[in-house]
């Protein structure tokens, strides 16, 4: 029994002794080592690490439910957690929709953990930053390199237990050339797979290619979205569409069984692919959840409460706050295309037109098929105008280029857009998918979006940089 499981099992016992055998309790104990080395103006300016522990207790007693959590794991601290959670339960309002505990269930092993990543030193992170900064060759560099390790244990009073570990590394940086930025962003299982020099060189090439942008009029443009931009689509679809609570409230666009997307779109929430514990906050084993298959919406995500309300059961998406904000998929893969997206694949003309605008043959293939449109690197500050149609406004960032006859001809100033994400991905609107998926890190460790570049028939840009 590992240290986290000793704590979890001990808290369940404590509840049993103090609240009686009828009390239902579930406990998740998570230990974490999180570190992030941040750089700006080409030097490390913030460099942090945190050793953390969190004990999460959900207690259902006498028809009332309360969640308590804390960071103290000494005997007094755990006793205080149980006592204050019990006290709160006595005063809490009734909870007629209590979904019960997860029954004893086998839990998969989860992704392999790279020990060198889990316990990487600050020097190892700084070395990757140094390589990134050197590779931008005189441009300004900014970004971060992070490593994360979590070890978790779950136990409940129904006899279900689970343990798991997870680690990941991520690097996200920009190069800056006279007001133009280029980005390179990657999430990996192993810190060793993050090549600071390669990422820096890519960001620098994009930044140089983004220099001297022109302003184009707003309107509908065909677009090629690079993986960083596509990741924003996946995140918003997940938060507001494939969220089982929002679906139950009729605030989601999702209609399972309906061909809402282009047939080329297949989305899978795949937490066991990388970087996450193999079970959720409620002890439910995580598994791959097909959200969209061949353009047809397949499922939405549930925790135990939302799943019970829907009569569907949990999909393993219980998380802190999911009772309020809803269960949200955080590990989404947009499956890559299986056929050549365009005629340029073989030639791989990544240096055609504005040098550096296209950084890889995959994107080059998509761009090559576009008569007139825009190549977009990244989106920024996207917010929902209406959740039902998932109308989003936001801005482009880190590089936009005009593409004419398959070649990026010049850099373009940033746009504001207002677009319905499901509509933009709707039947007949996806003109091409790249063949190589790239894993993009989420804002917190354990959250990622793996996607190829994407060519769409139309994107509604509603304003230019100057208004």
């Amino acid at each position, binding site marked *: 029994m590992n240290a986290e499981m000793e704590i979890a099992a001990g808290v369940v016992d404590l509840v049993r002794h103090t609240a009686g055998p009828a009390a239902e309790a579930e406990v998740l104990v998570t230990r974490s080592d999180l570190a992030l080395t941040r750089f700006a103006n080409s030097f490390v300016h913030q460099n942090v690490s945190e050793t953390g522990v969190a004990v999460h207790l959900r207690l259902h007693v006498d028809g009332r439910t309360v969640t308590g959590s804390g960071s103290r794991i000494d005997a007094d601290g755990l006793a205080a957690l149980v006592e204050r959670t019990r006290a709160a339960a006595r005063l809490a*309002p009734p909870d007629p929709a209590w979904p019960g505990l997860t029954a004893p269930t086998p839990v998969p092993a989860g992704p392999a953990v790279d020990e060198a990543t889990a316990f990487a030193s600050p020097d190892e992170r700084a070395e990757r930053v140094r390589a990134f900064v050197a590779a931008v060759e005189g441009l300004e560099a900014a970004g971060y390199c992070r490593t994360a390790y979590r070890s978790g244990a779950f136990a409940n009073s129904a006899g279900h237990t689970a343990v798991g570990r997870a680690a990941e590394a991520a690097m996200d940086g920009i190069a800056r050339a006279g007001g133009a930025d280029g980005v390179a962003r990657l999430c990996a299982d192993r810190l060793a797979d993050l090549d600071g020099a390669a990422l820096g060189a890519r960001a620098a090439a994009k930044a140089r290619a983004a220099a001297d942008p022109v302003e184009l009029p707003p309107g509908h443009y065909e677009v090629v979205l690079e993986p960083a931009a596509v990741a924003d689509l996946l995140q918003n679809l997940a938060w507001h569409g494939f969220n089982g609570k929002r679906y139950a409230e009729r*605030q989601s666009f999702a209609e399972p069984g309906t061909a809402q997307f282009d047939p080329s779109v297949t989305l899978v929430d795949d937490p066991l692919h990388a970087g996450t514990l193999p079970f959720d906050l409620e002890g439910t084993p995580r598994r791959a959840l097909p959200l969209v298959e061949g353009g047809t919406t397949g499922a939405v995500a549930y925790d135990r409460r939302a799943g019970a309300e829907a009569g569907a059961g949990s999909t393993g998406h219980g998380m802190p706050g999911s009772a309020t904000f809803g269960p949200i998929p955080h590990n989404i893969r947009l499956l890559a295309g299986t056929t050549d997206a365009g005629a340029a694949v073989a030639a791989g003309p990544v240096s055609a037109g504005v040098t550096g605008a296209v950084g890889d043959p995959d994107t080059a293939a998509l761009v090559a098929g576009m008569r007139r449109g825009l190549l977009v690197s990244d989106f920024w500050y996207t917010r929902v105008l209406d959740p039902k149609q998932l109308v989003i406004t936001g801005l482009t960032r880190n590089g936009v280029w005009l593409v004419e006859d398959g070649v990026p001809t010049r850099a373009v100033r940033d746009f504001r857009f207002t677009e319905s994400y499901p509509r933009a991905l709707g039947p007949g609107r996806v003109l091409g998918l790249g063949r190589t998926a790239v894993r993009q890190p989420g804002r917190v460790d354990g959250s990622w979006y793996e996607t190829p570049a994407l060519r769409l028939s139309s994107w509604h840009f509603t304003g230019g940089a100057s208004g």
Partner: protein
Amino acid sequence: MSEFDAATAAVQAALDAGARYADARVMHRRYESMSARNGDIEELSQDESVGLGVRALVGSGWGFHAVPDLSDAAARDAGRRAAAIAAASARVPGPPIDLVPVEATVASWASDCVVDPLGVPLSDKGDLLVRATATMREHGADLAEGLYQIWDTSKWFVSSEGHRIDQRIRECGGGISATSIGDGETQRRSYPSYRGQYGTTGWELVTSLDLAAHAARIAEESRELLTAPLCPAGETDLILGGEQLALQIHESVGHAIELDRILGWEAAFAGTSWLDLARLGSLRYGSELMNVTIDPTIPGALGSFGFDDEGSPAVARDAVREGRWVGVLAGRDSAAAAGLDYGGSVRADGWARLPMVRMTNVGLEPGPHTLDEIIAATDDGVLMDINRSWSIDDKRLNFQFGCEVGWEVKKGRRGRMLRNPTYTGIGPVFWRSMDMLSSETVAWGTPNCGKGQPGQVGHTGHPAAPARFRGVRVGVRA
């Protein structure tokens, strides 16, 4: 071992490991939230978190380490690790780091609190949310939601320069919202704002909001919005309610005047700023009605404190005076890098996070008008209130906001309700178009300001009142 002892041990260990400056914060935070939906309690959560974060400066490199353990051994180890991390920063060195001087202070401070929010019975707090959400359902809302949140934070700060400061800050607030769902769209009305109103106060703030009294009205308005005409598209005179203006200030002034952004320290994530330090003191930011202060001393406002998280005392400063940009939000190191002589706006979201430049209370001083006078003086325009969406570029220039509700204003009178109101613009152009400002100021609290990597959630205050802006583009849609 006391909290001060733990912080002192961490600082000493960092100095012993080679730091030329170190500080440490022990924080003990209790948090409680309850949410209700459609007349039932949805979630009740309580959290108690205790830990220590230590920051060390070695040469020109910073390091920070945090642990959830206040033992002497853990504190000393944290100090040593912070110094080691700072030394690693030297692999990619920057310019020399200085800190603007701050008098070493030994002090205690606590926010005002009449009714301890954690002492109010859960059943009373639950009844309030249940009653309000049930009323909204009875009056036509498809989805009726209510929420309150409480933070009770004690912190102990020690620096190698002799600071020894303890503070206790109690914050709370809440709100309700009603959503009606039609064919292909949703409409929401909230009171007093989407996430509610928050302050550094006791439960008396929530009581004063009288949530239940507004439940029926917002439910009916959310229903009515489903069939209201769309906000027209085009350029018009725009009147903003105080709550929306508070967020406008937050996004297009508060973040823009953060010195770390201006210096490029946030370039890769939160972004930079359109402001150029060379024009501090001369740049015209807005019209002469625009007077913005940075004031963490406002009693009860959400961004108030006695001392910031590097020991600088709370001091009120001007950010914009008669439309001219004159001040920034700064910390000791960023101020020194910029050649300024004040910090005072550095805060950390808990013991495990690095202190960084954050908003305190950034707000507009009252104007000479009232909302009624502004409407009466408007021949053709739109009144918008209560934020629904917000988006702004990485230089804090190009923004687009959506509000829950709009009203036509014709010939000096408020007319029919409008749905899906949005407006867009460029910050300084927008602020220069402000020609009327109300005196009806409220210190709105924003409890969800995101910044930093790893992410931090800040609590900020924004005194604001209704105002009018000329020739604004409205009605942007997909």
